[in-house]
């Protein structure tokens, strides 16, 4: 559905994206990486807000016959007119996108993202969480073929995060959803594919399950009170270690999570 070929972008001497190439099909894609890894730059290039220094973004199987899928975008910072009401904002985006039967469509979206009760409130009077849910809802107006979500869960409480995950999973059956985040738990349950981005390059990418199964032998639960100076993270009462071999005597192999994987990729050099 979308092919990114050799896209590069630099800000003065900083290289934000280096020869990024990837092909996105239908499904949910999570782009993970620390701050400054190039996630937002990539999102901005895909959405046309930033011109790349080189490379191209193609919205089709081949470059010769470009089809033009619709794109929905939820930027990192709220991007709405404060004097519009919730309904008006969604309706305005629907009008811009030429959506038919707007009212029913908007009502359904408001229901899905739990903002129906605020439909006639002005945006400037909304709480941060409601504003964020509205921002996410507008990204799905007209059910576009590609939806880009840049840090979508910032400001959402745990219940709202669950609602978000459910809604996205439900709606993504026939679309490409790209979620850029550094909050691993937000995408762990819903992502089909994961891309780890660091310093503008893909360091690891693939199907979530494949990645995790490859990584199963790397993850260990340490015995209580044990001391290990390698990569570790606290998980409730347990301490988990990331190591290719058994790190210390008494360590038990456990199923890897996306967070372990993240730690393995980005924790080592830090």
């Amino acid at each position: 559905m979308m092919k990114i070929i050799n896209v590069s972008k630099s800000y003065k001497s900083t290289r934000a994206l280096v020869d990024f190439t990837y092909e996105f099909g239908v499904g949910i894609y999570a782009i993970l990486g620390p701050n400054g890894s190039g996630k937002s730059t990539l999102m901005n290039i895909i959405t046309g807000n930033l011109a790349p220094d080189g490379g191209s973004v193609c919205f089709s199987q081949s470059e010769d016959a470009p089809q033009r899928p619709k794109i929905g975008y939820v930027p990192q910072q709220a991007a709405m007119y404060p004097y519009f009401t919730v309904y008006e904002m969604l309706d305005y985006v629907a009008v811009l996108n030429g959506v038919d039967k707007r009212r029913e469509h908007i009502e359904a979206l408001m229901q899905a993202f739990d903002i129906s009760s605020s439909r006639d409130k002005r945006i400037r009077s909304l709480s941060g969480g409601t504003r964020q849910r509205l921002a996410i809802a507008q990204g799905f107006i007209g059910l576009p073929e590609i939806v880009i979500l840049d840090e979508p869960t910032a400001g959402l409480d745990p219940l709202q995060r669950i609602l978000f995950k459910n809604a996205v999973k439900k709606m993504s059956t026939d679309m490409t959803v790209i979620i850029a985040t550094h909050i691993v738990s937000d995408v762990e349950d819903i992502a089909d594919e994961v891309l780890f981005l660091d310093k503008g390059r893909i360091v690891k990418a693939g199907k979530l399950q494949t990645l995790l199964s490859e990584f199963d032998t790397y993850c260990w639960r340490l015995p209580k009170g044990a001391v290990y100076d390698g990569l570790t993270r606290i998980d409730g009462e347990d301490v988990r270690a990331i190591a290719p071999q058994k790190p210390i005597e008494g360590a038990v192999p456990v199923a890897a999570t996306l967070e372990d994987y993240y730690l393995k990729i980005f924790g080592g050099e830090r």
Partner: protein
Amino acid sequence: MLFKYELLKLFRNRLIIIMLCAGFVISFAVGIGEQVTEVENYGTRFAKRLDTVIYSAKTNYRQIDDKESEMALYQLGVVEKYSALADVDVSSRARGFEAALSTAYPYALSLAVGIFAAIVAAHSEYRSSLVLLTNKKGRYKICVCKMASVALVVFISGLAFVAAALAGAFVCTGVSGFFAPIQSIPTYMLCPYDMSVAAAILCRFGIAFVLILCACLAVFCAALMLRRFHLAVFGVVLICSTEILRSSLVEDAFSFFGNFAITDFISNEWLLRYKGMKIAGVFVSQPLVALFFAAVLIAVLALAAMLLFKRARTVLTVKNASGEKHARARGGAYGYEIKKMLSGSAIVIFICLLVIHTLTLAVVYRDDGRDYEKIYKYHVLQMSEMSFDEQRAYIIDERIRSAEQVSEARRLKEKFTNGECTEAEYSAALQRAGLADITNNVLRDIDKQLDSLGKLIEQGMDAKLVYAVGWAGLINKPQDFFLIAALVLILVPYVNAENDSGFIRVLNANLRTNRKAMARHRRRKAAVAFAVSLVVISLFNAADVAFFALRFGLPSATAYAAGAGVEFACLGIRLWQALVCKFALSLLGALLIMAFSSCASRRVNSTPKLVALLLGVGGVLFVAAKLVPQLTVVDVTSYFGCALLFEAPWAVLLGHLSLLAVSCVPIAVEHIKTDV
């Protein structure tokens, strides 16, 4: 240390730096454009003028019954002041100081920089709310530092601009006579103050600095109250227009407000006139009165600013949070665009500016010239049935008659001085001479009208003389600055609405793959902006026409404009056509504002910067046109009046297309760039 950081906030602001540089360049250009006036027998002329002033003041004093009255004290003051100047040696001529003394540019530019600095200083804490969120106790100190840094910016800018003007004059004419008396400059021959040129420049700078500081502190307070930049700019327009209205309305030398006219001190008015008021039985000159009240005003404004800053909050009270229902925008895409443009503040701005515009007209064209109008109307009526040649002859006869009356009054004056006629006879002759003087002015103007008429008749056109007071006023009226302000303050926030809200990112993404929809959206925006401009311009023009029609009358709209003494580049333009052309030109001007702001908004995201950029570019073109009249066609402000009707149509068209092209080139370049 605090002061250092507050100053840093101002000097790290690119726009302030740009304004400082632009101001420096403009002041230098003004200095270069200075012209030296050579006057022969200057010393003798000076002595004669001085004698006349002293003689008139003594005569006036003799005629005043109450010798303790303010007027009597004023006349005594004039005699005393000018008698003291009798010994002034004006033999050494001063040159090169006109730019620093006679033009308002350096001070007005410093005022502009100060206003912007005040807004930046006030708004910087709203943008980065750290100080307002954490500092509850030390705010007085922060506020004082902010005000001090604004004062320093005003001082530095004023000093730099005056120095630039002097440098320009030095390059152009050379500078000499720095310590010569101010009276040695022909413009200031009757300056009532015994001071050198250097002292005059210093005083003018000092007084202007204090008054500019007052204005900037008022803006600082306004900006603390109004968080949105364009509202703060609107506040500035209100403050300035109130000041202009006030100083136009109250000219009386003995009124309290007449002595505190910022415009007088920004221009060189106070150096040319001896004004003042009686305080505790003593006549105090205008500069002293102004300085005293400026000091009081600074203290009051500083106190107000500190209280406002103490109470400033970053979190606004949330209104309508209790589920209040709002009317939905109707009319689909156009409905939403209109809602985006016509916010409450835009409507308030428009109404206020329209009211101020009309008030200004009422003040500027007030009932001072009734005698002129009556005499003018009488003669035009007398001539209405005459042929062109008869009209010519009539004017010559009438001019001879009025000249006779003036000379008779002169003869009687001599007789009265020698005691050969009574005071009653002399007064009656004076009255007749005064009337003859006005009649002479009227006849001279009608003669000019006949000159223009003659040109049309030569070309075989059926032209007739028109009662032209209203028409001439309407056509020769200066640019509508309030209309420009209304268009800028309504159009720019609308053009930049997507950037301001951040919605541009969503819009770009949504319509990235649908260029037609993006083009449709842009067309829709342009159409709404153009329609609103049309309404705004129509209402301002309608207010103009209604005012002049009611006040002076606008008869014979179908007559040629030349019949009213107005010689446009195309002589065949009729009066109603001139109004239509003015309207059309204003629309072209609005188009330029839209094109420029739309283009600039691709690079400059914030509305404040966009407004400032627009005003800056407009200001530079305005000054350039003032210095080089041939550049009038590229002065955007000239589109909001009839000035361009006096230029060749091809030049206007060329100027407009060039401005439009300059505005649109960056859009085209960007278009090519984003097509990667």
